[in-house]
């Protein structure tokens, strides 16, 4: 779907009341994985708001990315209980397998590696989110398996 179609679908679905700004931005992210300048401008026009204000809202929230993201956004929990459970080794395995550091996207735009604050799987850390899917009780071996699954699948 083209970007302007995505924005107009979202606007049709939610409307253009101020309250709907977040749902519309969230919808665009669900389709595009991130909010490009064009997307922000399109939303601003639809809501009859300044682009700066739309950007201001988007940049406040860590799940509304304003930088290009891969098809699979990996968010590793960096909070205390996951760290105690061995999060560093998980990070190492991810970085080694994907050949990127945290905050980066692979050259083929398939994976983005991020850290996030507590995700609420504290009793079963280390945990990570791949798009909407949760993985817990991770080990470096498990992580490599999971990545290979995504690499083969898409």
């Amino acid at each position, binding site marked *: 779907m083209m970007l302007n179609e995505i924005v107009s679908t979202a606007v049709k679905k939610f409307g253009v009341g101020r309250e709907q700004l977040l749902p519309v931005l969230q919808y665009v992210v669900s389709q595009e994985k991130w909010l490009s300048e064009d997307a922000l401008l399109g939303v601003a026009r639809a809501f009859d708001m300044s682009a700066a204000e739309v950007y201001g*809202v988007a940049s406040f929230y860590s*799940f509304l990315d304003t930088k290009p993201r891969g098809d699979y956004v990996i968010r590793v929990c960096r909070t205390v209980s996951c760290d105690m459970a061995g999060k560093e080794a998980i990070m190492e395995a991810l970085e080694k397998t994907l050949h990127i550091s945290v905050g980066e996207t692979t050259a083929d735009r398939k994976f983005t590696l991020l850290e996030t604050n507590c995700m609420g799987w504290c009793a079963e850390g280390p945990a990570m989110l791949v798009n909407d899917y949760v993985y817990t009780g991770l080990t470096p071996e498990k992580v490599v398996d999971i990545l290979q699954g995504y690499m083969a699948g898409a």
Partner: protein
Amino acid sequence: MKTIKVGLGTCGVSAGAQKTYEAIKNEIELQNIQAVLKETGCNGMCYREPLVEVIDEQKNSFVYGEVTPEKAKTIMNSHVLADEPVAEWLVQSTRPSEDDTFFKKQNRIVLRNCGIIDPSSITEYVATGGYEAIQRVLKEYTPERVIDVITRSGLRGRGGGGFLSGVKWKFCRDAAGDKKYIICNADEGDPGAFMDRSTLESDPHSVLEGMMICAYAIGAEEGYIYARAEYPKAVARLKHSIREALAKGFLGKNIFGSPVNFSVKIKEGAGAFVCGEETALIASIEGKRGMPRFRPPFPANKGLWGKPTNINNVETYANVPWIIMNGPEAFAAFGTDNSKGTKVFALAGKIQRGGLAEVPMGITINEIVFDIGGGIKEGKKFKAVQMGGPSGGCIPASMGDLQIDYQQINRTGAIMGSGGLVVMDESTCMVDMAKFFLRFTQDESCGKCTFCRIGTKRMLEVLERITDGNGKEGDIELLRHLAYEIRNNTICGLGQTAPNPVLTTLKYFPEEYEAHIREKRCPAHSCSALLTYSIKADACKGCMACAKACPAEAITGEKKKAHEINTAVCIKCGKCLETCKFNAVIKN
């Protein structure tokens, strides 16, 4: 006919419960077994997931833990078909089990249905007495009476503030304005807390019913649930439950045939911890940056779109139907003078049994850690427990007999918070721990107040240099000074409480800070910058295993001769220590 229930909360699914469920389903179809297969939520024993419960013809319950698809097949053949329970995998049944102590001291109000009913079925919720409380209220209670009952129960907001819920409801009821709103705060974000996620995943209708009762009491016709983006399953469950309730006429116009209207909308967060603060949450629902504002006016007078609004969190609402059905006295019978009822605690960190436990207020820390949580992992020593997340503090093991209630916890410098308990053992460095929480608040600060935005950054820098071995005389005083300024010059709870983890660790573990600063030593052997590894020459067999494992090639030595570590090259990864079979590598 037997009933088989599989726990399909996020904790179960991520442990592989979906595959277990499929395996059981397969077995039922393949062998044409006469049994009912159901899904359920989480019963709190997250450490034993995937969980499978078999209920036999006599209604006896047998709960199996860590059930892989293979184990599930055995259970189907042996227990379901041949009536021979597989004793070795049982974690709860008519026979005693080592896991029984997990439940012994619990009293379940909020978690009353979790892990028992199928959360995707409104019929099952109704069958356990669900939606009776709201019907009773609509028929027999005036709004004032509802508020009176909740006030008398002593229920306090479970999200962290601990304000009396009945009083809060009354403020909102009495506020001028024809249009009022209620909000359910499901933006649970404290590190170490996950009871709200589990409640929403395992018993969403109890929260909806609590909201209905509150809406009636306050005079609101619209409610919002603000749920965080990191909880996709909880959001899906809620959406489904709202559809079910709408279809039955429990939500919408004239609920349960009464003149009362009530509808609920879900708003999804987008990854901002500060949105758990009520004024920030309201801004976020309104489509703005989620920044807190100064209070007063409180939301009870000026909330969503400037209208009187009541905000409670998930756990608070889930208590409400139970209080109506069982009476405020029954609720107030649990707990202490100032803290009534029960509280759900999330157990995480270095504890044997990670999971959720609901206990009466007034229970001691030791009872939770040892009797329910099974003590510390790997037989290590209990050192401290972090309570209340980044707004809370570390309570040392020496205070383990402390009774948990709002007053007692506040006295320690920690707070009850949302009930996350992160347990630490002797290998946890308290300075590092404080650094962790400060990095969290620093990261999540919205940037509105200077002292929170910059003050936390400066504190974090000081902590970083202390754990890196570059701490200076005067750093402790500087931390205290910054803490004081941040606490007194910020407008919301996030900033005001941000220094707590540092202040409590300074209070109870000053010697650890001093050892880092003066002796460049980490007493817990945790801060890698302050560690050195060496090889005991008399214990080393010269097997070369450590040299091979070393990623930095820092270990030299010939075969069958003692090796040495070149500390200038060593990256302190600890691989040699893990590899050595002769305990020749030592950490200093």
